[in-house]
């Protein structure tokens, strides 16, 4: 391992979208950016991923909506939101005015709703569409499209046809399936430009004082560092299944070291979710920490590290030997 690497190129891309750095927020954990804008300049992030938006205003589920769990939390928000019209008029405008790279997450009850959302956003100033086919906080688990390869691919191909062709679409998958690689292949075949991994895992907490479920919605989505090993495994498996597709990795990222695991497993960029509740400036801090972690390991650029854990030891050695030769040549050139 090399010990000195002064600068690391953090630029990356998600399909055709170029990002200054690989750290984004996670859907549902940053609203539409405005609140975090009080703590840092949202334009300095790789991007803001907005809360999943639906066609109509939606109240979401009853309270209590959260329970803290060891190194994690459960939530049962139920996609509370203002509906697409208010979102475009207020939230999207704010993000644009503030220079943020904007990933809009959309959610629907059926394929038509996803298609209508994609159409409403066709001419809007958005950089990427994240298609949330994996929210566990809907009344009927039968609606989780990402549990069924056929349903998942149907939504994705319809959205791909309806959305602006210049805007990449990413399918957001759930880990609550037997074979996530199979779901990933099906959405890739259906035209997804990339994949976001992972949404929350379905979980439950029982309140020992009331002897009843702690959440108003009974079950909820588990997030936070508790789910990180599951998330890293999913990114690894999906990278193997569809190596050409860019992946946006997330699940329990709290530090630059955590982010690096996802990159090495195959993610081109990462989203930070629950950690924002603990530390509103976490996404900004993680950019710096990730840069240091890459430098410490001798990487010249973030993109060189993407999927690096899949390489054999010999291939890994070859990368660093190549960098050393290039450095030596540069030094020789200077002389």
């Amino acid at each position, binding site marked *: 391992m090399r010990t000195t690497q002064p600068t690391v190129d953090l630029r990356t891309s998600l399909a055709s979208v170029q990002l200054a750095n690989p750290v984004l927020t996670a859907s549902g954990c940053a609203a539409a950016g*405005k*609140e975090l804008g009080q703590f840092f300049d949202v334009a300095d992030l790789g991007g803001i991923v907005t809360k999943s938006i639906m066609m*109509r*205003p*939606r*109240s979401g589920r009853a*309270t209590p909506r959260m329970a803290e769990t060891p190194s994690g939390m459960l939530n049962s928000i139920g996609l509370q939101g203002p509906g697409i019209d208010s979102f475009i008029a207020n939230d999207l405008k704010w993000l644009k005015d503030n220079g943020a790279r904007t990933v809009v997450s959309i959610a629907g009850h059926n394929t038509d709703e996803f298609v209508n959302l994609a159409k409403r956003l066709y001419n809007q100033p958005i950089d990427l569409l994240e298609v949330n086919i994996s929210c566990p906080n809907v009344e009927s688990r039968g609606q989780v499209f990402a549990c069924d390869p056929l349903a998942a691919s149907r939504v994705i191909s319809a959205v791909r046809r309806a959305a602006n062709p210049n805007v990449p679409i990413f399918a957001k998958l759930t880990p609550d399936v037997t074979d996530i690689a199979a779901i990933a292949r099906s959405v890739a075949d259906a035209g997804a430009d990339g994949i976001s991994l992972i949404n929350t895992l379905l979980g439950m907490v029982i309140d020992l004082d009331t002897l009843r479920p702690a959440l108003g919605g009974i079950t909820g989505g588990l997030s*936070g560092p508790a789910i990180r090993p599951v998330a890293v495994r999913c990114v690894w498996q999906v990278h193997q299944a569809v190596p050409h597709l860019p992946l946006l990795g997330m699940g329990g990222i709290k530090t630059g070291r955590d982010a690096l695991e996802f990159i090495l497993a195959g993610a081109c960029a990462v989203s930070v979710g629950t950690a924002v*509740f*603990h530390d509103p400036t976490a996404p900004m801090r993680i950019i710096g920490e990730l840069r240091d972690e890459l430098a410490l390991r001798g990487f010249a650029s973030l993109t060189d590290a993407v999927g690096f854990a899949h390489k054999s030891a010999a291939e890994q050695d070859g990368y660093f030997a190549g960098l050393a030769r290039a450095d030596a040549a540069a030094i020789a050139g200077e002389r």
Partner: protein
Amino acid sequence: MTELATPQYKPVQETGEIFDLTRFGEYLQFTVVAPGIAEAYRPGQFVAVAVGGADTSMLLRRSFALYGVKPGGDYAGTIQFVIAAKGKGTRWLFDRRPGDSLDLVGPLGVPFPVPRNGTPAVLVGGGYGTAPLLPMAELLIAADSEVEMIIGAATADRLFGQLPAKRLLGKITVTTDDGSAGQRGWVTDPLPSAIERLGAEIVYACGPMGMLRAVGEVAKAHAIPAQVAVEESMACGIGVCMTCVLPVRGSDGVSRFVRSCVEGPVFDAGRIRWADVGSVPADLFGADGN
């Protein structure tokens, strides 16, 4: 979707050293050096405290109403808050010592609205809920308002703020459920006569949800507003997660789930749909969005 504005004052995140810790009955009062928070604070706002240290498994901050601040002068500004040991996070806070550091975000939330000068007001505090009312009482007195205060708790050692309240107001009314201090009963028992005696035009309250609801009903019976600071389960405290919502009727007559961390914690009691807390009433904005 929200009709109330985003917070007036920009919150900051700062690491502050614990300057002083004082026990009062079941409570622990913190004084922490936090000049940024102290500077922007208004009564009714709260602070979100990280618990458990750097490698903790407790991810969510704990919220505490600000009991007051001492703005910077010769030394850096400090903030005060009062906590009860309840679960894991507050028990961890009980083990802190002066000199230890805390990671704080604040000031958060909408402060108590301040009436025009000279408005007579009754303040009602339950348990540690008295803490945020004391700086409000001070503010009202400075604005030439006549102020009465009723403080209550289940038992004598769960009362907070008796002494500072007496020092501020001369005389206060104290109630306990079991009669172990003051008069036996609820804070709402002496409230009607206090409102009438004073000709109060507004009530301020902080305490358990049941108490706030009851205070709201007494105020309504006297045709005056009650401004109450609620305590709803919060994951972020800064308005990004949507966990802390309450069904609140807007000035347009439409009820919405609003975030109590940024649109509260202070609400007009008459606008909260108390009976519907914990459910999704059918006429709520977006309830049919399913």
